[in-house]
């Protein structure tokens, strides 16, 4: 703008005054706008700075300290807390559980969500109804889901059998009866089932939006070329849905790394279903191992960051190209 203004000024001196006035006015308005926008945004920027980044820094500091007990103790401990965690058998259980939970939950939600979206995309009657139906579980809090699924996945046997196991016995599908979340090693996968139930509707909504964004012409062109329905999905639809899958992967993945309330509601604080977030809570607030708890939080943060940061970078790059 300024360049153009100067160019005009060289040619004719008279309109210059006007131009400068206009420019000043614009600049003023722009500056005012900018001040106002910064003013409006700054409280949240500040809040984010203090309550997120300053506290992350503080947590890093605590994780490098010997703090154990009620009173803060910042004496330097180096990386001891971190090193101890990696030889801690409980943390090994946590990592195992997180890997199993993330795998089952993310893969399950994406497959189920995609399937539901494709079914809804066939243009069946009452699509709106089914869409809300599948999306509803997401409106429920994890605690409620947990309480209900705790009851459904009741592992009791004999006369006290209830929930799914009782249903299976009515349906003469007794071989399906199992110990659910109390199964050794794989119990956490049962908890992931509840999470899939809750989040697959959300994944469906993501995919449905993606499917609707695919231009009809592309499908028609493929049909004219003689592609079968399966081929259309394989070579046209799926490649176009890659960004959606990536988003779903990131969103579900970081949720599963942070899972806490669902497990607490289903199983309480019990070691077989332990995850880093529960270990962190227990060791910090029940056991007063503040240093160790901070180290777990930082590891949790890093694991989420590894997932999120490349995604953010990727998204920003894509958006700036537009």
């Amino acid at each position, binding site marked *: 703008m300024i360049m153009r203004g100067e160019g005009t000024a060289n040619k004719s001196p008279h309109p210059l005054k006007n131009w400068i006035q206009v420019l000043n006015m614009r600049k003023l308005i722009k*500056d005012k706008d*900018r*001040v106002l926008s*910064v*003013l409006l945004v*700054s*409280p949240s920027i*500040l*809040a984010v700075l*203090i*309550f997120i980044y300053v506290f992350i820094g503080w947590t890093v500091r605590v994780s490098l300290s010997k703090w*154990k*007990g*009620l*009173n*803060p103790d910042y004496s330097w401990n180096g990386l001891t807390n971190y090193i101890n965690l990696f030889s801690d*058998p*409980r943390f090994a*259980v946590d990592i195992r559980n997180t890997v199993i939970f993330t795998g089952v939950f993310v893969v399950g939600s994406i497959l189920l969500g995609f399937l539901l979206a494709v079914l809804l995309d066939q243009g069946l009657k009452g699509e709106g109804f089914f869409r809300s139906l599948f999306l509803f579980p997401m409106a429920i809090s994890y605690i409620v889901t947990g309480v209900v699924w*705790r009851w459904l996945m*009741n*592992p*009791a*046997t004999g*006369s*006290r059998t209830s929930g799914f196991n009782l249903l299976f016995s009515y349906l003469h599908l007794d071989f399906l009866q199992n*110990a*659910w*979340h*109390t199964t*050794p090693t794989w119990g956490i996968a049962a908890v992931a089932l509840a999470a899939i139930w809750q989040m697959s509707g959300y994944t469906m909504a993501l995919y449905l939006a993606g499917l609707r964004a695919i231009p009809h012409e592309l499908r028609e062109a493929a049909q004219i070329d003689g592609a079968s329905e399966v081929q259309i999905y394989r070579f046209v639809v799926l490649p176009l849905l890659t960004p959606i899958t990536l988003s779903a992967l990131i969103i579900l993945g970081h949720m599963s790394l942070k899972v806490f309330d669902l497990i607490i509601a289903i*199983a*309480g*604080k*019990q*070691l*077989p279903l*332990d995850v880093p977030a529960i270990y962190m809570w*227990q*060791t910090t*607030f*029940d*056991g*007063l*191992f503040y240093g160790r708890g901070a180290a777990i939080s930082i590891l949790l943060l890093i694991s989420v960051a590894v997932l999120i940061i490349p995604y953010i970078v990727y998204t920003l790059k894509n958006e700036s190209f537009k």
Partner: protein
Amino acid sequence: MKRFSLTLLGLFVILSVVLTACGSTPTATPAQQPVATEEAAQPTSPATQPSGGKQQVEVFSWWTGGGEAAGLEAMIKVFKAQYPDIEFINAAVAGGAGTNARAVLASRLQAGDPPDSWQGHAGQELIGTYVAGNQILPLNDLYESEGWLKVMPETLIPLISQDGKIYSVPVNIHRANVLWYNPKILKDHNINVPTTIDEWFAAMDALKAAGVTPLALGEQWTKMHLLETVLLGTLGPEAYNGLWSGKTDWGSPEVKVALENFAKLLTYANSDSASLSWQDASQLVVNGDAAFNVMGDWAEGYFRELGKTPQVDYGWAPVPGTSGTFQFLSDSFVLAAGAPHPDGAIAWLKVAGSKAGQEAFNPVKGSICARTDCDKSLFGEYLQSAMNDWATNTVVGSLTHGVVANDSWKSEIDTALGLFVQDGNVNNFQAALVAACKSSGPCK
């Protein structure tokens, strides 16, 4: 541009002041307290009283529901009758067994805003956390002047003291080492109530052979509860106390025997223990689904709620191997080191330790008095028998309920137990217990 950045800078400074001012209040005080801001504004020097002449006392607890809340109300009534001039502020925070409340309390203490007195499990849970943090004061003078040393069991006092200083006033007593049984099941199978661990195993073998679930067990903490009673039953009171004072070696063969007993006990339990709360597990016994259950005597209050009759639907005995020993836990109140109203706090503690206060609280809560001179006629059949035992037995402390081990130690034992329940390896379990005592207990 310069002016703009100046404006921005100024804005940041102002906002940061405002934000930090807003930020500190909510962390320091729980929402339930209308007077919190007034209190926070007062200097915390001990002699300060509110200018209006009206005295106050703020008591923090997690008694917010059921018999506990009703019991607290009854005790507050006694307090108001005795000290009409002192305003009582009930700063109770909800949450089972105080896990929420303790997190709130910790943040208040770290912010330098203590309540005058707060509830805590008597023993190391209080001492290990708050004495080590210089947050509470010794109460020996109060015990002397109120004559409590004469009315509380002699063996109790060392368990609530550190270096000869007594740190809390126990209001109620629960017993941890109680074996609940179904009288009908035992009678049907001609089994006498076991008194030793071996008799217990024999009885459960017979029941198992007959297709009855011998032992009802619940989630992880109820397993720790079982473990502590088996440690006591196998080692006896003296060696059991030694575990917590550092005199008994956690790596000893005797402890190993106890752990093997515990491992064997787990084989008699219901398969779905991990999904049951203590109520679910205890209920199995009164419903006739299991023969035995080890749980604290709050289970008796629950049985009554269910409309069950003592000696008909449920019977009780000390856990095998522990007769003559009373494994206790207790809710108690402390005196805050920086109490804003120390006079009010002392008045509250006097009521909490008094015969009138404890007789008001305990029948409602379903526990017995810490004092041995309470009126027995106020209590039911089970509690009367517990009162007799409390007055005559050797008193030892509970692990699960905070008497014998500090929080850090207990949480390390809890982790070791959880890993053991997963892998069943007694040697690893014992090694982890030895390590826990070294890292967080008195062992060197």
